[in-house]
């Protein structure tokens, strides 16, 4: 690097062909800024749209699954033949889940009210049940000891005007304060819910049912079911078909629609690139003719145009990937209130696709031009 002249000479000596090749590539892009920019723009837009759609398609399922979990439990664990579950059942379920879901214990007894009416008393964990069954409409959650959550329809039976009431089970009574009412439109409306420790101290009945909302794909949920069955041989573990099948159906249809849309959009984008790039290569037939007239071999010219198309594809794919990730993140934020996580595994696909389309759009005009004499092109006919 002593003098510029000698360094240039050295470089030329080292790789004369490469340097000329690169120079032609760069100059071609610089001199015809307008055309190059419009070809690159088409490439970038196509790559961006393709990236956004692929990212969205992969991430959409995870996002929608999260929404579907608000339907509540998809797995139920019950004691065989109506017996209670072992005391460590909940702990075992938690270990199997490994934090990927919510498990809520329930224990049921038929209790009697002061005037002899039967009502179902349920022991549960209020904190967990709030997370599991978000559709429960509760006026106020119990917060202290001796408080109960009373179902809409059970309320007139156990406690008119919200007064404290007694429940009896096998001769043992418990005094309860109604903290609030519960409305679900289903069986829960006829029950009285109290916290698990109080329920256990009163009735002595252990957990009979554990309801689980397990996150993940259908296969993952099936895996959880079989692992639970292994961990708890005394219990019966079954998926809630109403929830699992409904989810699979809606998700499957949505996925298929987004997939069809993604294919259409990517195809349009690719065709847009094909049209623009074909024009751009065709437009340079004079360069082609001059190179040929100056004695360049067919393979060198083909290599040159291919390299040009490939570099355009690569640059366009990289820029488009960045923009596409931005679009996907924006859609995620607007629609799901959570950004779509960028998937870098999409990048090689987009890159390969872009280069392939770019090469394809170079091949068509090239094969047309090859058949024509350079003189005719240079004459401008």
């Amino acid at each position, binding site marked *: 690097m002593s003098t510029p002249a000698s360094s240039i000479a050295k470089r030329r000596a080292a790789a004369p062909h490469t340097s000329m090749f690169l120079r032609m590539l760069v100059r071609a892009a610089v001199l015809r800024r307008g055309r190059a920019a*419009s070809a690159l723009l088409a490439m970038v837009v196509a790559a961006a749209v393709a990236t956004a759609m692929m990212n*969205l398609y992969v991430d959409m399922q995870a996002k929608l699954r999260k929404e579907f979990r608000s339907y509540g439990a998809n797995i139920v664990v019950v004691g065989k033949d109506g017996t209670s579950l072992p005391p460590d059942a909940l702990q075992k379920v938690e270990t199997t889940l490994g934090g990927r879901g919510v498990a809520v214990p329930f224990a049921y007894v038929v209790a009697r009210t002061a005037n002899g009416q039967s009502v179902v008393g349920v022991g549960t964990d209020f904190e967990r049940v709030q997370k599991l069954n978000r559709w429960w409409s509760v006026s106020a959650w119990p917060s202290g000891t001796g408080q109960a959550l009373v179902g809409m329809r059970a309320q007139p039976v156990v406690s008119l005007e919200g007064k404290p009431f007694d429940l009896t089970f096998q001769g043992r009574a418990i005094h309860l304060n109604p903290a609030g009412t519960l409305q679900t439109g289903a069986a829960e409306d006829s029950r009285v819910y109290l916290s698990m420790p109080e329920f256990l101290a009163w009735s002595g009945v252990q957990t009979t049912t554990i309801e689980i909302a397990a996150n993940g794909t259908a296969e993952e949920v099936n895996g959880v079911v079989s692992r639970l069955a292994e961990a708890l041989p005394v219990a019966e573990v079954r998926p809630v*078909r109403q929830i699992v099948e*409904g989810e699979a159906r809606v998700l499957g249809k949505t996925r298929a629609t987004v997939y*069809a849309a993604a294919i*259409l*959009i990517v195809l349009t984008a690719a065709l847009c690139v094909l*049209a623009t790039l074909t024009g751009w290569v065709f437009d340079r037939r004079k360069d082609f003719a001059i190179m040929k007239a100056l004695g360049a071999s067919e393979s060198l010219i083909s290599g040159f145009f291919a390299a040009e198309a490939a570099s355009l594809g690569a640059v366009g794919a990289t820029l488009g990937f960045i923009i596409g990730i931005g679009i996907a993140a924006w*859609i995620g934020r607007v629609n799901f209130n959570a950004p779509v996580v960028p998937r870098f595994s999409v990048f090689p696909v987009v890159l390969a696709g872009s280069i392939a389309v770019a090469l394809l759009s170079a091949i068509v005009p090239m094969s047309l031009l090859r058949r024509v004499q350079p003189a005719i092109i240079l004459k401008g006919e």
Partner: protein
Amino acid sequence: MFARLLYESFRRQKRRKLLAGVAITLGVAVATAMIAVATDIGDKINRELRSYGANLLVTPQEDTIDVEIGGVNLKPPSDGNFLSEADLPKIKGTFWRHNILGFSPMLPVNISVGNPTHSQDATLVGTYFAKHLTFGKDQFTTGVRNTHPWWKVNGSWPADDSSDVLIGEHLAQKLQLHTGDTLTLAGQGYHIAGLLSTGGAEDGQIIAPLPVAQRLLGKPDAVRRVYVSALTKPEDALARRDPKTMSGELWDRWYCSPYVQSIAYQLQEAIPHSHAEQIRQVAQNEGTVLSRIKGLMLLITLAALFASALAVSAAMATAIFERRREVGLMKALGAGNLAVAALFFAESTLLALLSGVTGFFGGSWLAYRIGRSIFDSQITIEPVLFPIIMAIAVVVTFAGSAAAIRRAVKFDPVFALRGDA
């Protein structure tokens, strides 16, 4: 002269016109298909969401509380009030009858099943499987087969007028009963048509046609509750308001919107002495899932429109840019900027209209295919979509051409003719 220029331009430059035309056709086709799918997806997904089962429950007004654990009723079933089976077809006479996709009455009866050595208490539920009913001139079929689509039968579904029954798979295992066996209840034999698997409480129950349960209970015409599956509109601020506090006009709007609350209200009106309520697990979650999917499709449609607009503009820009020499010649012969621009715009418009029509029909066909293969039903294309799509096609083609035309017109004819572009 203008018309001749236009005509010759199309006649002599078939390849270029075809290329631009194909781009516009494809762009318009994708836009049409996506708009059609996006406008219809709400309805389609709403129907799919019905596979979660009923979202409304009708019970007698003065109902006593259920004492039920794990699907076993622990209360004398003759207790309490009943609805009348004869009133049920009136559900199809309510304002939102077309939104009610099906309903299933349920009548649980406590019975004891098994052989003399081993007998056990179980619940038999009488219901409709796929019952044909008539209300006025309307004929319809309803029952658990459309309100509870996750119920699977190993064997065959019983007919509603037979005395065949289904037995839950757990109960069948416990009693060692199989399809084709005879089940003895209250001294009478019932043929088991199949084993039922639901993953819920029904696995430990016996499901029978409604008349069988009514006979066992000794109460003809009695129904304990009715599950109704209805297409609803996601809840909004108006839906959550108490209808009793609404003014006349607001109340009309509430009544005439398919909210789950207003359909419940109309069911109460239709069936005497009844109380209808939403099943919150199903009804409350539908809205969120539906709006998420609709939002997703809307945004994807925007992306599709954007992509097709760009494809069209790029094709037009390329097509015009290639014709600099022509512009140079026209200008050298004395044509004004206006005349040149007018010719190009006329060409673009013609191209947009021709390709737009093809694209619209291509897009309609695409939407039809998508509807058929994904949802097994047709996606309706609103006729109003046609002028909108055509307008979009023309505007986008214009916008795409405008920049290229401006550049072409500004060009010095000398350079253009020498080919130093």
